[in-house]
């Protein structure tokens, strides 16, 4: 083996030379550009805080004016919502039941369908099949909600629900709106969940297969748990989209706020109410108009609560890496 002469002064060779002994370990370059970039990143991150502050401010002041006239108790527990009728009452529960129905129906459709599709695409489908089908499925999320709204009113309600299944729904129903809403958010669930499962290292799958686990068990017991945080995130996103979706429910769920007792009834959701009022005839600044912000604030708080619960859930379910 090569063993050189003891090196007091090693022979130098061509090419770049090693750095001479240092005097300082300070930056060799000032990197001002990087500092500016870094400041930019921090600012960009700060935008999300500003957005939240902006939302709260733009909702809270008109809402306060509303609650100066209507007690919070009446608002939260009243079962009648007729701010534009002569006999006014301001109980938000009808809007909330409407939202709950459409959301529950939508999730009942999108979570199983979306996760099923995600599992199939990430674990079963051949690469070429996945490459074709995934974008097709993603298209569902891209279909504008206005088009879905039309579809729900003109097709799902009258043709599918009444015609095919013989369900006695009117022109509007939370069922038709919820179903279509569910179809719309399938890719929200599927796409993120698939990404999360695909990100699970292959070595984990190999370990499982190497132990004699079949595909189904590998999927359910290794891949799925390993991807649970991404999967939970996908469901939360779906949930918040269902609660917050406006056009479909505005067009298909109904325009009348009422306590919704069953899926075949019509009912107005919180978002549907906001859209209607924003485009409506109410004089701005009046109590009737400020309902907009009271409902908007309620919607905001509800989605906030959903989200806090889901963050808790994610932490609980996640297996520590």
């Amino acid at each position, binding site marked *: 083996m090569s063993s050189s002469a003891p090196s007091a002064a090693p022979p130098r060779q061509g090419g770049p030379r090693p750095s001479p002994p240092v005097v300082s370990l300070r930056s060799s370059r000032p990197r001002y550009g990087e500092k500016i970039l870094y400041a930019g990143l921090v600012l960009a991150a700060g935008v999300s805080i500003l957005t939240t502050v902006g939302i709260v401010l733009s909702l809270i002041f008109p809402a306060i004016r509303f609650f100066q006239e209507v007690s919070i108790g009446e608002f939260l527990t009243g079962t009648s919502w007729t701010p534009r009728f*002569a*006999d006014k009452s301001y109980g938000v529960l009808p809007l909330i039941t409407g939202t709950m129905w459409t959301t529950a129906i939508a999730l009942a459709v999108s979570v199983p369908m979306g996760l099923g599709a995600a599992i199939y695409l990430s674990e079963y489908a051949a690469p070429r099949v996945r490459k074709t089908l995934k974008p097709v499925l993603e298209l569902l999320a891209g279909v504008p909600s206005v088009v879905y709204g039309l579809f729900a009113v003109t097709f799902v309600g009258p043709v599918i629900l009444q015609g095919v299944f013989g369900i006695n729904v009117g022109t509007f129903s939370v069922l038709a709106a919820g179903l279509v809403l569910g179809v719309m958010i399938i890719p929200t669930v599927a796409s993120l969940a698939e990404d999360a499962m695909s990100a699970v290292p292959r070595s984990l799958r190999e370990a499982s297969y190497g132990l004699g686990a079949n595909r189904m068990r590998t999927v359910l017991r290794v891949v799925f748990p390993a991807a649970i945080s991404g999967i939970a995130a996908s469901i939360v996103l779906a949930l918040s989209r269902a609660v917050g979706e406006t056009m479909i429910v505005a067009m298909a769920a*109904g325009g009348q706020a009422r306590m919704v007792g069953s899926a075949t009834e019509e009912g107005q959701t919180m978002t549907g109410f906001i859209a*209607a009022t924003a485009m*409506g*005839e109410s004089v701005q600044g009046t109590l009737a108009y400020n309902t907009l912000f009271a409902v908007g604030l309620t919607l905001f708080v509800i989605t906030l609560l959903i989200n806090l619960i889901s963050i808790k859930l994610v932490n609980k379910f996640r297996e520590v890496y």
Partner: protein
Amino acid sequence: GGQSGGTATTGTDGAAAGGALAGSIVTDGSSTVGPLASAAAELFMDANTGVNITVGTSGTGGGFKKFCAGQTAISNASRPIKEEEIALCKAAGIEYQEVIVANDALTVVANKDNSFLTCLTVEELKKLWEPAATGTVMTWDKVKADFPSEPIKLYGPGTDSGTFDYFTDEINGEEGASRTDYSASEDDNVIVQGVTGDKNALGYFGFTYFEENADKLKALEIDGGQGCVAPSSDAARDGSYAPLSRPLFIYVDKKAWTRPEVKAFVTYFVDNDAAIAEAAKYIPLSEEQKTKAKEEITALG
């Protein structure tokens, strides 16, 4: 803003004459007036290609909010401006002029195959629609004894529409006074569908919608005290279709009026009122109304 101050070129002063005019005019307001204003804008722009007119439909209230903030030159309204809005404009220093542009007639419609509904009195309509009817007046015999005991199915516009405000005011005596157990929709097509699909259904909306769907629906005659009158242009204009006919307005910002394209557009709107209304299937101004409109323009300066 890019459009309210965007008068780069000077146009010929006066009525719509040639394509020398340029600039943009922002209008917003009632969704009832929207199609009429759109028709006027379209016809005007055909003759004046340099002018861009946008028509928003934020609702009469939303329109006034922007109007009184100086963001629009013209506000479309299906009702006269209200106290609160007057105050708003005043506070912002916006001076304006109301101009009457057309008429609307709320039309009460029933299914084509319905045999017993042809004419309703205002009292019967009230019985049918008043708040007290909620949950009690559920079959037709409750409205009038000789009607059959069939279930009532009602359709109406969303509570945030000017149509709702106007109908409840005229029939039930108070804006917003209405029974609550009916199907409400922002989309009048749904009312058309609902009534078409149910023999015992009844609904109401603007005359335009009826005109478009006259083959599918039956418009009811209304007895306002002087006998049954069917909704029609003439009946609306001469006031015999009472109390369900109403005037429609535009509000013009006096500052915007100094811009030649605005002046030209508003003048064009009033001068060609009959053609515009006919094209948009609205009810044109009567002679007196037209005179009044001209006076209102003169008041603008």
